[in-house]
């Protein structure tokens, strides 16, 4: 089994690139691979807890919690997140908050790296 590290930068709502990152992570974890996800840029807004799911908008919370339960490690860039007004105690429990070197450390042991830069 392999080790996949995904960097995801696009925002939660709108582009569905974010949804792609989560679905890919889920498919890889389901096959038994070790998966970690790094959020930076607009994606960091998605770690806020208590997202209201309207049917016209993607939502992340339910899927993020399911991934955490499957053993996927998820970390958000702390600076990017607080710059968007989201504080740590407002975040989804289980998601890590760290600096960019978290991503590089995961890359160190990854077999495959996918950076989805977005935009």
């Amino acid at each position: 089994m392999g080790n996949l590290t995904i960097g995801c930068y696009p925002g939660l709502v709108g582009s569905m690139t974010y949804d792609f990152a989560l679905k890919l992570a889920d498919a890889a974890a389901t096959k038994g691979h070790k998966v970690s996800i790094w959020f930076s840029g607009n994606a960091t807004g998605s770690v806020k807890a208590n997202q209201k799911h309207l049917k016209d908008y993607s939502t992340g919370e339910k899927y993020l919690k399911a991934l955490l339960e499957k053993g996927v490690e998820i970390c958000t860039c702390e600076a990017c997140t607080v710059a968007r007004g989201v504080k740590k105690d407002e975040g989804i429990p289980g998601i890590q908050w760290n600096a960019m070197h978290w991503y590089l450390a995961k890359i160190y042991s990854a077999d495959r790296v996918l950076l989805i830069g977005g935009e």
Partner: protein
Amino acid sequence: MSDIKLAFVVQRPQYKGETSRLAITHAIAYQTVEILLEDGQTVTPKLCFIGEGVLGLQKGQNAMDLYGITSTESHMKNALLVDLDVLVCKEDLAKYGIPEAAMPSAEEMGADKSIQIVPFTEIQKAVEEAKHVLFF
């Protein structure tokens, strides 16, 4: 002792969204990653600019006064100060008529490294030599 080589390739113009700037700051983070790794484990990114990625690298940027944010120039200097290899595609600078002398330097801040203006083949080589490649 093992090093993982990475190629960060910036292909979109600076000041277009956040992604191109995050390439620089994520590369700089190689300097502090040791706190999360075992002794002797290192990660070494090469930061490469191609295509429109070479736009917005010029010196003389005035981002703090005008928009209240750190300039790309300032990020580039930081990258040099932490000894990153920064490769800028020679053909693309020429294509957009940007003089090589317009590239920022951190020499007066004590940096040993300078921006390396290289033919595209060198960037292809960096990508081939890397274990992973990240396009921004």
